[in-house]
């Protein structure tokens, strides 16, 4: 089957960038160690050799100026991809992201276009400790003007990254570090997945699990386990967190009457709270149990694997969470 070409998540990202750079001379990339070295995760591998150092730019360690470079170049007509190596480093660039990129268009009365893609790598599970493991997506989703994308598999990665580059608004593409090596079917030709469109990763009738990035994969494992007990889970991967595909989530919950939201981020103030609220506002009469959130405890990410393995939710936590929800009926 010609269609069954497999690609790793990291190379799906790389291919999307490559194809968009081929298609549009206004696309360029900038970031730390992305040129000659190809990026610390290999995400930009081979691109400088192919497109040259003018289009794949090694920058100083200057996160604020890296995003600023993207903002300024976008508003003057280019289509930048700027990379912040680890998601934790968005904090260094937050003014440019939150006060500049997200708001220029609105503040200018609509008279600005910012086709800017900010790429970064989030998530834990590598004993990388509190400043290299965070999941800060809720922070970004709270900012009007930004779009936020977190793919859970190689196919979605390529389609969503393509959409981010083609998008006329600032987007943040968050790769999950633990998914970089995940392989799966990825078509060779260019394609895009619309931002704001979720995906039913697994159809089911008893309970809706809303999960994204690495947790979507953990939810798949949990669903297999629960099917042995006769619990049939439907997994919704929103893929884009801002804008959020509320329709898809709500229609699933109306069918299953139960919902569990899972993320790796700290539970308090995480996106799970928003999703749970949407569900109860739009599907209250359909619910047989309160919407449950599964997320990390309210502490920074601990270094020691002995702690981190208990800190990050996994398929076992999800199985337990769903058993608890179903037991209430």
């Amino acid at each position, binding site marked *: 089957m010609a269609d069954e070409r497999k690609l790793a998540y990291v190379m799906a990202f790389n291919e999307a960038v490559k194809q968009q750079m081929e298609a549009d001379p206004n696309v360029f990339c900038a970031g730390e160690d992305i040129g000659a070295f190809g990026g610390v995760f290999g995400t930009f591998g081979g691109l400088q050799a192919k497109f040259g150092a003018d289009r794949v730019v090694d920058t100083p360690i200057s996160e604020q100026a890296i995003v600023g470079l993207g903002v300024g170049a976008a508003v003057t007509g280019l289509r930048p991809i700027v990379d912040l190596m680890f998601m934790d480093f968005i904090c*260094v660039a937050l003014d440019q992201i939150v006060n500049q990129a997200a708001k220029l268009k609105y503040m200018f009365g609509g008279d600005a276009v910012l086709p800017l893609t900010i790429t970064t790598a989030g998530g834990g599970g590598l004993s990388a400790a*509190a400043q290299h493991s965070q999941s800060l997506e809720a922070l970004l989703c709270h900012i009007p003007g930004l779009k936020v994308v977190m793919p859970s598999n190689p196919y979605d990665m390529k389609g969503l990254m393509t959409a981010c580059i083609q998008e006329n608004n600032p987007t943040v593409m968050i790769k999950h570090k633990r998914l970089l090596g995940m392989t799966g079917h990825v078509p060779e030709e260019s394609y895009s997945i619309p931002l704001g469109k979720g995906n039913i990763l697994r159809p089911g009738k008893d309970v809706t699990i809303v999960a994204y990035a690495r947790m979507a994969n953990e939810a798949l494992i949990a669903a297999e386990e629960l099917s042995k007990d006769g619990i049939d889970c439907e997994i919704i991967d929103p893929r884009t967190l801002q804008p959020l595909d509320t329709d898809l989530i709500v229609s699933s919950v109306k069918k299953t009457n139960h919902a569990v939201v899972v993320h790796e981020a700290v539970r308090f103030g995480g996106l799970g709270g928003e999703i749970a609220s949407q569900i109860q506002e739009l599907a209250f009469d359909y619910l047989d149990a309160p919407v449950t959130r599964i997320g990390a405890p309210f*502490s920074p990410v601990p270094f*020691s694997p002995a702690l981190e393995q*208990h800190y990050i939710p996994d398929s076992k936590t999800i199985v337990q969470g769903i058993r608890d929800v179903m037991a209430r009926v």
Partner: protein
Amino acid sequence: MDLPVHVQLDLHRRMVRIRLFEEAAGRLAESNRLPGFLHLYVGEEAVAAGVCGALNDDDHITSTHRGHGHLVAKGGDFNRMMAELMGKATGYCKGKGGSMHISDTSLGMLGANGIVGAGSPIAVGAAFANRYRGRGQVAVAFFGDGSTNIGAFHEAANMACALHLPIVFACENNEYGEFTPRDKTMAITDIVDRAAGYGMPGVIVDGMDVIAVHEATVEAVERARTGGGPSLIEAKTYRFYNHHGVQNLGLKYRSDDEVAMWKQRDPIFTLEDRMIENKAATRDQFDAIWAELRADIDAAIAFADESPYPTPDQIMVGVYTSMSGAN
């Protein structure tokens, strides 16, 4: 070479302690016994040792992602360091921080740091507090060449000078930030050129010569302690290993010849040769020091190995301080 012999031996000891700790950590990482990232300080020992040898116990330092050397030089305890690198409950940070956040506030070591550039503003705060309390302490910010490209460094340097604080900016210029050479990320060759822009004196020292580093630091610390304000020291140095991990040769961003050239200038062996030549010490004396410190390292590895991992109930401990001040 008019430094008293006991001072030279003290600097030597600090360097050997760093070297042995780092080589041991590297071996453990190679056999997958250390979780997480490991940024080794090997090759740069003269900087941490030369600087910290000029400080008092109650002076403060801030560090970087490459921080073990700074803590060892400030008097760090091998056992607690090794346990922390292994993620054990007996480690300096109880397994919460690991290599990149290793710290000992009782030694004035305000943490390795995972965010490039973040240590310098914190050193400014420590310097401010030190002057505020008036006990004559100084603060030193260790930072890499690459970190001088980040806003935090510039804000810290300017504020320190504007407030005329008792601080020393100690730059480890190893010519690379991760896998990218310095000349691709800045248009100047010497970090010291930046000092004038903030209004502080700056000097370049041979970062492979612990005595040169030490003498420059003594002068800068004296200036800071006596109300003369900030200084910048740029130590030209080199890391013998890769940015992280234990590979040293066959790296695509720097040549093996370059590595070999710098290794010729090994800061520890150069000092030993010089001291032997000057009859300040003997080979036997040095051999005994290495042997003694090796035994300390072996004991630290055993201590860390035998130590328990933290239990899951510790995850939520230490996020906030209680009103009683307890952890």
